[in-house]
């Protein structure tokens, strides 16, 4: 196999650092600790949200369990001027963009479609329509290019865009069209595909008979296969791809090979379609464990840090439990707002109708 086709791995599942001629990690101990902390916290976030769904506080939740390294490794490679488009599962990336977990819950609780301030966080909300946002991301990147915001040599202002999607999404026409637009216009975009082995109940081989990273070869952009449970490698390849994008060298496709350790969503029952032995196989490759071992073995992870982190995680969970329940239901009348820029006679009339219904309901 060509070197270029070999999967990038910088730390293996035993917690041993691996050298790779292509990528040098620039992460120091503090940075590694910080990545570790983020992974631990989002795992907690995920666990808590799952629990809230079980308790009836959320309509649905899409767990990220198992994908912490892919999301934190790539998410932490972003700069503030970059922009992100993601699916419903990238809570970890939203976390890296500074989105408060309780804000995320608004979507799943059904109080808002777009649960956080996209302009402020420079990350568009959860996209449910598989693949559609790959084109939005490409268009946004085309915009950065047209606006002269790439290739100026200033790494603090040059912009890149990341589009996150799954293995299943690779089959949608929109994603493939996005590859075409991105290469035709040499747009500053990184397509970050988390191959978590499953699209609901369908294994990746239903979507492709070859590695997904190889899809890139068909369109003429670099395709990189990275161990998606290796946060160091995910960080390194994304950093490099983003740098290339910002400096005007065009798009990259990254396939992060990982595993959806939980259900597709809280509505799903994976025992219907996959073997427990798969879970066991992948549990060995846990993205958090390996970094923990490394940090521990090298004396970087101190007991106090661990204790503090556990406390942080608990208080995050506690806050989520409390604040989720406090999330206000939207005013029913808000349903009529923001369909158009101005007012609309028909909608206004319907709104008045509901006003009457609501006021009558109060009377009764």
């Amino acid at each position, binding site marked *: 196999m060509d070197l270029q086709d070999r999967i990038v791995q910088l730390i293996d599942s035993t917690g041993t650092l691996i050298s790779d001629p292509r990528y040098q990690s620039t992460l120091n101990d503090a940075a590694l600790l910080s990545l570790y902390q983020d992974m631990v916290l989002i795992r907690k976030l995920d666990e808590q949200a799952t629990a809230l769904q079980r308790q009836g506080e959320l309509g649905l939740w899409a767990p990220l369990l198992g994908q912490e390294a892919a999301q934190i490794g790539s998410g932490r490679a972003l700069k503030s001027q970059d922009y992100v488009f993601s699916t419903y599962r990238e809570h970890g990336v939203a976390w890296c963009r500074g989105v408060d977990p309780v804000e995320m819950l608004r979507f799943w*609780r059904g109080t808002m479609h777009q649960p956080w301030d996209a302009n402020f966080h420079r990350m568009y909300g959860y996209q*449910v329509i598989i693949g559609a946002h790959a084109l939005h991301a490409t268009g946004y990147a085309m915009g950065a290019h047209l606006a002269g915001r790439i290739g100026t040599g200033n790494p603090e202002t040059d912009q890149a865009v990341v589009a996150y999607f799954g293995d299943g999404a690779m089959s949608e026409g929109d994603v493939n069209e996005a590859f075409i637009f991105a290469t035709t216009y040499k747009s500053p975009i990184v397509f970050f595909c988390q191959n978590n082995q499953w699209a609901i109940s369908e294994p990746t081989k239903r979507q492709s008979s070859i590695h997904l990273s190889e899809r890139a070869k068909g369109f003429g952009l670099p395709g990189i296969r990275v161990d998606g449970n290796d946060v160091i490698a995910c960080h390194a390849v994304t950093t490099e791809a983003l740098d290339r994008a910002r400096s005007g060298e065009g798009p990259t496709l990254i396939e992060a090979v990982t595993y959806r350790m939980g259900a597709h969503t809280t509505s799903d029952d994976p025992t219907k379609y996959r073997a427990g032995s798969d879970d066991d196989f992948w549990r060995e490759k846990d993205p958090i464990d390996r970094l923990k071992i490394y940090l521990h073995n090298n004396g970087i992870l101190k007991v106090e840090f661990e204790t503090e982190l556990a406390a942080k995680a608990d208080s995050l969970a506690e806050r989520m439990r409390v604040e989720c329940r406090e999330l206000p239901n*939207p005013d029913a009348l808000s349903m009529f707002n923001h369909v158009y820029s101005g007012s609309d006679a028909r909608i206004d009339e319907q709104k008045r109708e509901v006003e009457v219904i609501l006021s009558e309901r109060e009377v009764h």
Partner: protein
Amino acid sequence: MSEFTLLNAVNRGLRRAMEADSKVILMGEDIGKLGGVFRATEGLQKDFGEGRVIDTPLAESGIVGTAIGLALYGYRPVVEIQFDGFVYPAFDQIVVQLARMRYRSAGALFLPITIRMPFGGGIGSVEHHGESPEAYFASTPGLRVVTCADPSDAYWMIQQAIVSDDPVIFLEPKRRYYQKGEVDTTLDISEAPSMYKARVVLEGSDCTLLSYGPTVATSLQAARMAAVDGVSLEVIDLRSLSPLDLPTLIESVKKTGRAIVVHEASSSGGVGGEIGLCLMQSCFYYLHAPILRVTGYDTPYPPSRIEDDYLPDADRILDAVEKVMGY
């Protein structure tokens, strides 16, 4: 007579159609081992094999487009679109290719494809899981569009859709999936009522409620409440949105002199407008009041915490009844 849920009735209907004709194949995302996200196809891959219950790549245009090729080959594909909100990537294949094959070929080719789709809101889920796209399809020449409102219709209509030589969009009211009802599975398919024939669910004399899918139950509820106040509502389940069974509708409205169309889809451009205008033309001298609509509002589907305020309910229907009775 056996009692099933609507969902189970779909499953049994599919099974019977597959037993009756080996050319019937099912296609869709997650319909195989998993049996579909709602389990409508549960057990079918196990019993009929991977050649007849086909898990497809995640690409709706691809699913419908390849189903067209399979139908040209001689198969009778039944496509599952996982949720209403995911049908749009296949729109071109449905309205341009699927709908027109027979016409373009002057009858030489035809596509006996059924597209099943859970539709409508009220399940407390996230965006794109509560849509009512029926008007897009009902206004497309060459397609047939039907909905079932109870288990018996679900069981028979899915079989009728599959044996039909026309492409049929088959809409399943997802929030009624677990509603139970009697199904007489001993009938022959030829004895079951036609999916194109509207069903008078409840007879009445003051006003006709015209509905389909999930809001048939809502309409019935309103009728029961109205009866208490001495207002007699006739409830009709349209079953088919294309073609509309206008004779049945006209007969009812000529009798009652009033009509209200009830559906979850937005008012503007929903099928209510078409029905209303047709009835105005046919019942002009019979109408005591204009035809009204009780529908979802003219907005995108709202976040689920307020979906109950969006969806038509019995109270809103009764308000409209009061209005038409006051003319």
